[in-house]
């Protein structure tokens, strides 16, 4: 035994040298690893020391939290007046929806958020998911629209705030993905007509700004409809966002399709799978996982693009804030208002982005080498 200890086998596997432990080592490695890095650390540190206390004072310690206009005015803008948000949050969150009935969009939105949370995990991606979502969306419309089950009718023109933002994003993204997939497959099809039609659509839509599409949908489109046929403005806007987003989705999906090696399709074909079966079982499951980051990109941009609907007199979250700022007494507290709305957007986007990272890792496990299976 001593002999072994004295002459260790040179080929035996050894532990890697330990990384320097402790916070001191971390600081040296990450903050002071070189002269420029040390300088940058000191500079940023100094700036933080100057700015941070003032920011904390403005945002929190000195701020007025109660909806007290007089107290806010006495601040003379030296601190935040969250009283504005406290006073107007219902208008900002729900727009012009009748005040007494605002529990309805609240419940409806919570229902949708709960449904999103429930369907977030791949384990719940089963056949029942589509009908379940149909029920959830029907419930959403029933609650918000009313006119049945003893709920008073609320015209879609009055819907607004966060529920409207959520609704337009959800409908826009979920309906544009299947259309985008079809367009992407069309664009790569061997049939010239399908390829031409898909390309034409994609290029045309991508060449027009969303704001124009919204104008057309709300002012021009009704003129083109045959007499007697009416589509309500909200439906037209949702349709416009969907069709607009579909062109971008198509290009996202096409990127994923192109990234797949040709051998995959050949292997599927050699087994006798039809073109559709090969797309459905082999190509799309891989391509769609590859483009999750770009999907989320589109999702986030749709979420924020919905604020453009204010130009056609719909009051989403941003639009509703402007309504709130229309009150002459409070109109000077727009910074607080925008910070609040910004925080809502940020929280939603951060959640979506974290989720996509998690999903990408989980679904992409097959792409990596052995260790992944250890669990």
């Amino acid at each position, binding site marked *: 035994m001593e002999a072994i200890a004295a002459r260790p086998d040179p080929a035996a596997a050894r532990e890697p040298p330990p990384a320097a432990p402790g916070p001191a080592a971390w600081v040296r490695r990450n903050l002071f690893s070189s002269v420029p890095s040390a300088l940058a650390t000191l500079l940023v540190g100094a700036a933080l020391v100057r700015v941070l206390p003032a920011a904390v004072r403005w945002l929190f310690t000195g701020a007025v939290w109660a909806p007290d206009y007089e107290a806010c005015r006495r601040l003379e803008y030296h601190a935040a007046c969250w009283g504005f948000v406290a006073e107007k949050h219902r208008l900002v969150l729900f727009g012009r929806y009748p005040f007494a009935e605002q529990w309805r969009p609240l419940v409806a939105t919570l229902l949708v958020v709960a449904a999103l949370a429930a369907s977030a995990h791949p384990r719940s991606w089963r056949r029942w998911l589509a009908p379940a979502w149909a029920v959830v969306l029907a419930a959403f419309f029933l609650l918000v629209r009313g006119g049945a089950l003893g709920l008073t009718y609320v015209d879609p023109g009055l819907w607004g705030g966060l529920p409207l933002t959520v609704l337009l994003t959800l409908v826009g993204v979920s309906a544009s993905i299947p259309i985008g997939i079809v367009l992407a497959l069309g664009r790569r099809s061997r049939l010239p007509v399908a390829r031409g039609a898909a390309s034409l659509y994609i290029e045309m839509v991508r060449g027009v700004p969303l704001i124009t599409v919204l104008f057309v949908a709300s002012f021009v489109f009704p003129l083109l409809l045959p007499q007697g046929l009416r589509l309500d403005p909200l439906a037209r806007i949702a349709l416009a966002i969907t069709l607009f987003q579909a062109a971008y989705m198509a290009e996202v999906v096409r990127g994923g399709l192109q990234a797949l*090696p040709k*051998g*995959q399709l*050949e*292997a*599927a*074909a*050699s*087994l*006798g*799978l*039809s073109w559709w*079966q090969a797309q459905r*079982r*082999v190509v799309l*499951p*891989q391509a769609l*996982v590859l483009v999750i980051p770009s999907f989320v990109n589109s999702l986030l941009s749709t979420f924020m693009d919905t604020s453009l609907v204010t130009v056609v007199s719909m009051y989403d979250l941003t639009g509703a804030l402007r309504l709130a700022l229309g009150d002459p007494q409070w109109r000077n507290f727009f910074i607080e208002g925008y910070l609040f709305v910004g925080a809502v957007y940020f929280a939603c986007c951060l959640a979506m982005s974290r989720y996509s990272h998690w999903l990408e890792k989980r679904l992409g*496990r*097959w*792409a*990596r*080498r*052995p260790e*992944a*299976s250890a669990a």
Partner: protein
Amino acid sequence: MSEPIIQLAGVNKWYGRFHVLKDVDLEVAAGERIVICGPSGSGKSTLIRCINRLEEHQQGRIVVDGVELTEDLKSVERIRREVGMVFQQFNLFPHLTVLENVALAPAWVLRLPREEAEARAMQQLARVRIADQAAKHPGQLSGGQQQRVAIARALCMQPRIMLFDEPTSALDPEMVKEVLDVMLELAGQGMTMVVVTHEMGFARSVADRVVFMDEGRIVEQNPPREFFANPRSERTRDFLGKILPR
């Protein structure tokens, strides 16, 4: 001799203006094992890829199992069910487990119930001695194991013909044998096989006929004993001189 199971007559193919296959005639009888060899770029891969119409020929006739290959999609899909193919790069589906890879076609093309498709897949995996890896994903297997799964996947459709497109060329040397052993077994069971390969040992021990191609033409074809002992053309001698150990 009965009607050949594969029949190519006067087949020509171009990639753009490049003439890849020139007046190729080839007949393969049921149960016959053919090895196709030749320098790279000689059109041998293109030739076998024409047999299940992964490539389209532009002139001539290709008849497989009594069905002529034309633009008719239905007849192409029918042929592909009868013809299994193994690729140089394996082309396993990385998002599916080994078992799902093998059971995919029986489940969706033959519409077998899931249990039946999987039972059949397990049988084929056992046949290539890799049943213990059924639950893994292809990325977790070695090259040799992946290629054996690919063979099982093709066999699972119970094809009458197997095409092999350089099945061992992408493998590390120590894994070549495990794949060749599986192919040898298959040959012993009477499968019709068309194999593009540089493994001349395999050609010697298994092939009924060796086909030598150069510049898109079939230069000569003979039983292996004759082919290796008395190569007729200068090109064949030259090629064999380069790849055979002295």
